[in-house]
């Protein structure tokens, strides 16, 4: 049975037949609870991760990111159990990050049901790690997280160890190098913007989104619908990540997605 498909008369209606921009709530995890730091420092408790994750999935989140900010050796087992619980309850993809420094770390997280992992400082200190992970598990599950800050010289630099240690590497240089090594996505957090709710860092996001052949997830500063509109339309981000505005219900996911649709942005 040969079926002829009408390739020449595809509907070309607005927002049909295209990859959508992703809205990604981020849950920072410490000792099994969700927390959100403001400017990487003070911490407030924001609830049970699995409950929140289920709520976000129901509300139409496109993916979830869990960043374990304790990441001490003793607590790893707690994280693995949490990841396994999340995997049982969540019907959308999720990424786990925080303290990952070896192929074995990733193996355990994937075995417990994580779809992707994000690596940060350990990859910077040992760039071969990205290559090893990509070869072992495929680029599609290796997200490189970069914390970056704009310095007085007008350049964005890579920061390590949760934003506490400045490196001498420019953000764009590290991103290029990591993608060449096999990183499948970049999760870009602007420390200048994180926690401010004054908007994403459009210039560095756009630089990476336009230069790199892999998706860029913009993070840090999203506070209003307009911020998400501009990070997609002006900075060309493939996805936008936010935490506290969702956790504290300042902006709900259905409300945000509806507004983005009205603005002509391709949204699931």
């Amino acid at each position, binding site marked *: *049975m*040969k*079926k002829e*498909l009408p*390739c020449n008369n*595809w509907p070309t209606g607005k927002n*049909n*037949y*295209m*990859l*959508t921009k*992703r809205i990604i709530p981020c849950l920072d995890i410490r000792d099994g609870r969700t927390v959100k730091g403001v400017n990487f420092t003070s911490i407030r408790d924001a609830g049970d991760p699995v409950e929140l994750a289920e709520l976000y*999935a129901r509300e139409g989140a*496109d993916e979830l990111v869990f960043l374990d900010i304790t990441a001490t050796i003793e607590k790893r087992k707690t994280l693995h159990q949490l990841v396994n619980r999340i*995997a*049982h*309850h969540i*019907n*959308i*993809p999720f990424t786990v990050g925080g303290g990952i420094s070896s192929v074995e770390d990733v193996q355990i997280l*994937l*075995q*417990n*049901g994580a*779809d992707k992992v994000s690596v940060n400082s350990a990859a910077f200190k040992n760039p071969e790690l990205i290559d090893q992970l990509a070869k072992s*598990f*495929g*680029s*599609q*599950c290796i997200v490189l997280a970069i914390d970056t800050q704009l310095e007085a010289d007008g350049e964005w630099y890579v920061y390590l160890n949760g934003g506490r240690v400045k490196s001498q590497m420019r953000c764009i240089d590290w991103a290029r190098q990591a993608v060449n090594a096999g990183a*499948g*996505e970049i999760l870009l957090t602007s420390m200048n913007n994180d926690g401010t709710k004054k908007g994403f860092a459009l210039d560095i996001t756009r630089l990476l*989104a*336009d*230069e*790199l*052949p*892999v*998706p860029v997830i913009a993070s840090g500063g999203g506070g209003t619908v307009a911020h998400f509109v501009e990070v997609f339309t002006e900075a*060309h981000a*493939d*996805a936008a990540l936010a935490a506290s505005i969702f956790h504290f219900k300042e902006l709900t996911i259905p409300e945000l997605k509806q507004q983005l649709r009205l603005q002509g942005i391709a949204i*699931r």
Partner: protein
Amino acid sequence: MELVIIQYNAGNIQSVLYALERMGQSAVVTDNPDRIRNADKVIFPGVGEASSAMQYLRERKLDSVITSLQQPVLGICLGMQLLCSYSEENDTTCLGIFSERVVKMQAPAAKAGQQIKIPQIGWNNITQLDSPLMEGIAENSYCYFVHGYYVPFGAHTIATADYIQPYSAALHKNNFYGTQFHPEKSAETGARILQNFINL
């Protein structure tokens, strides 16, 4: 009913198992040929690379087990691609259930602000749905895709998606079905497609 998920060197086996569990459907994860042959339904998952996956299957003689199956079989993502005749990914001869070939995505010339990312990662809509597997699924429903290779239109296309150009989002021939997207990660739409497979 015994549902078997074929165990091999692929990445999303747990996700498929958990998705079925959420639907109240138990499943057995195994690479035992007899267990696979005797199952009522078989899911052939897959996230990974084609040549190493085919090599793994051949070494364990699972290739001939899979092609001989008579019961409903669902290949997911790489699983669907391996059911095709050939993949450009490392020049790999595949299982040949579907005559279609798997080709590499090629980015068109970049326009300003229109950098096309490969692989495709994210939610895209499926259309021209034409199969019991798609029972109750609305045209333009969104599914989650992660892939850098794709199957162009062919005789067995039962759903299409569009990324760079339109291509096969799902295939069907006799007892074999395949989805390029991940039903196990595609929220309610994906759960319904898995349920449709269970109901076949």
